């Protein structure tokens, strides 16, 4: 493919002005443009999205995409990777999507170390359904389902993924586009499960620009030191006031094993001889 098609579709963009989703889209587009520059075939890239404001990125980026359902990016993406491990699969998920409706899948994807990249657009609010609290909203957050403020403490998604065996754990912020691009790029090249939590500004329902501006702190990348990873991850609990580290907090390369999930001796191809296999089984069953 030498003629480079545009990476942006004709679809009308309907994110609010000032929305952090633009930064994520720009980073991904820039990374894809770099790949095009390296003459890499973008038809190997597949984007899987959930449902929510974030998910509209599937309409906007002109690459293969599976615009799935709320909370289910990961099983869809896992199925794609199982079917064709050569594909480079990116999940763009929301925080409601990934941390509420579909949390189970996140922990299992990390456990499996399935080779794909998860980007969580964590605006700490349900955007598209007009502003309810999510699992990462802080105590006291007043959303439309909790007008007097929630009392539950937020979860720390990075801690959960680390506890689940995630082999690439990072955080970035839509207010730091260069950092974002670098981290996403590293995540895409990691062989195994890559998890990038992106603090994303929601201009309409949860504009934390000033809050983040004062607190985010780009830290040095860490690779295999699990203790260092835990201290990065626990530096801020999504609730109380503290500096918020941004960076690659953990990276570990497990021996690549495309058959890590379930019983999958090999993927059926031209070489398989199903008729003989069936005949042999029938013979055994007499």
């Amino acid at each position: 493919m030498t003629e480079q098609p545009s990476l942006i579709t004709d679809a009308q963009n309907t994110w609010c002005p000032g929305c952090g989703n633009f930064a994520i889209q720009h980073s991904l587009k820039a990374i894809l443009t770099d790949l095009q520059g390296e003459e890499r075939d973008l038809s190997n890239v597949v984007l899987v999205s959930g449902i929510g404001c974030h998910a509209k990125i599937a309409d906007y980026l002109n690459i293969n995409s599976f615009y799935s359902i709320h909370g289910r990016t990961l099983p869809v993406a896992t199925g794609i990777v199982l079917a064709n491990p050569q594909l480079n699969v990116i999940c763009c998920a929301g925080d409601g999507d990934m941390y509420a409706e579909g949390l189970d899948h996140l922990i299992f994807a990390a456990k499996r170390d399935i080779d794909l990249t998860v980007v969580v657009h964590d605006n700490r609010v349900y955007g598209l359904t007009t502003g309810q609290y999510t699992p990462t909203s802080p105590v006291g957050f007043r959303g439309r389902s909790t007008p007097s403020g929630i009392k539950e403490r937020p979860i720390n998604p990075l801690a959960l993924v680390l506890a689940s065996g995630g082999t690439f754990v990072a955080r970035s912020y839509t207010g730091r586009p260069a950092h974002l691009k670098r981290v996403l790029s590293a995540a895409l090249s990691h062989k195994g499960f890559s998890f990038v939590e992106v603090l994303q500004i929601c201009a309409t329902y949860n504009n934390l620009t000033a809050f983040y501006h004062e607190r985010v702190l780009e830290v040095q990348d860490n690779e295999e030191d699990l203790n260092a990873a835990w201290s990065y991850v626990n530096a801020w609990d999504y609730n109380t006031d503290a500096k918020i580290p941004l960076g690659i907090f953990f990276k570990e390369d497990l021996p690549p094993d495309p058959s890590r999930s379930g019983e999958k001796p090999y993927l059926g191809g031209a070489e398989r001889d199903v008729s003989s296999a069936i005949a042999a089984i029938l013979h055994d069953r007499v």
Partner: protein
Amino acid sequence: MRDVHTKRTFSSDFFAWALCGGVVGVDEVSVLIGGKAGDGINSAGALVARLFSRLGYRIYLYFDYPSLIKGGHNFAVVRATPRQVGAHRERVDFLLALDQETLRRHVAEVKPTTVVMGRSDRSQGAKVSVPVKEVLDRIGASDLMGNTCMVAAFARAAGVPWEILEEVIMAHITKETSLNIAVAREAYTGAIEVSPVPRAPGAAPPLPLLTGNEAIGLGLAASGLDLFIAYPMTPTSNLLHFLAEYATPLGLTVVHPENEIAVILMALGAAYAGKKAAVGTSGGGFCLMTEGFSLAGMAEIPVIVVMGQRAGPSTGLPTYSAQTELLFVLNAGHGEFPRLVVAPADVGEAYRWSALALQIAWDYQVPAVILVDKTLCEGSFSCGPDDLIQLPYVKPVSAGPKFPYLRYQNITDGVSPFIHPPNPLAVVKVNSYSHDEAGITSEDSGTATMMVEKRIRKGESLAEVVGSLPTVEVSGDPASRIGLICFGTMGGVCREVAEHLGIRCIRPVVLAPFPSAQVHAQIDGLTRVIAVEENATGQLAHLFAAHGIRVHHQIHRVDGRPFALEALIREVSGVIG
């Protein structure tokens, strides 16, 4: 409904039996073997079945067990006949009791001529007492081989030649084979012939025995299945186990993920990436799949759901059978989209229709359900070469994709060409939202209407191809004006009942798209239509009514146990007078 727990004395029992007309033919044999969960009853039943296979019979094996691992009562009924059947009889010719409970519970299955054999140390009152403990002690075998011992004694009682028994054990007992042979020989030689079973007339070479689960798995594999994904759930867990065991020779990826939601979405992901995927579950797991099922409908991604019914609602009777999910699978998932639903009656149909469903689902890009139940999934049937064939099916011709590629091209037959990534010429966008031809979200009225209409046309194309297939099975007396209607595993018993009573039996194998014309062609002219279903509300009768067919009587069974042939004959006779 028959209650196996009702105690009857032999004499009144004989009386009831005589009244019922004694339909047991001399050319067939039924054997019941019972014991505790953990006694290996299912394997023992299969050994018995395979003895008869080698005598030239066709086999139907029903296995009954509660939801527990050890203890509790299990039993298997083997029916050996010259022609394939799909139901057990009410009384048996041999009753093999590994414990007292078996004798206590199965009094009603005993007729005056039944050879009742009991393990001497664990049951009293059997006509033939088998000294299992002594045999095992003499050989130095563990109690686990009690079932081998019992089967050997039975083989002798039934006049099965030693060579056959030996061959069956060699072929089917893979652990400690020689010790098992020794046990069998000891038991066989010590036993006496009581009631020899003749070879079947015109005996052919022995046929393989398949469970419904295995037949489905092989049918799917034959059509090119690439992945099987399931979370274990009775009665389809054994389909997962079977395909996992044979994953390598069949060239399959078999995955057991975190839950059923993941199961169906992984299957859709795999299908998007160009692989053929099927999933297996039961009602509770299917509930969790319905959202993904609807996604399959909207995104037009094929998937096969093997849906094994069991008695509900909710956890219900997890190891017993039912036909309660027909209307659920016909209507499951929000929104409207075409789907294929097939309900095979036996392993031959299970193989053929699974193979075909996979092809059709992929050719028409629709989700398909193979609607089965515990009786079929875990029952075993003989399986001849005629059973494992491909049904005649003409693949639709596609114009091929046009470029720039439009995933949802608004094409006349509704079936837009599906390219799978990676394809250097195409960006492939699938979407759960209402979308335009390129797969990009559109909430515009005209686009939404166009896409609904495209899917409706696809449903019509699907209905057309289904209309060209042998979707309705008919048996019994074509001249009769009385007809039984049924679906799925009820097919076996209803066919025999219809033949016995000289009435007709009409059974749609495809339930969606409903083969209305074919069903009407068979039903029109009948004056009485009787529905036989394993549910309480008459779901098939409801479906027929919605298609303008009046059902005059309904016969239900709701305890999860299949109808015995004679029980259903009585019920139908009661209706037709």
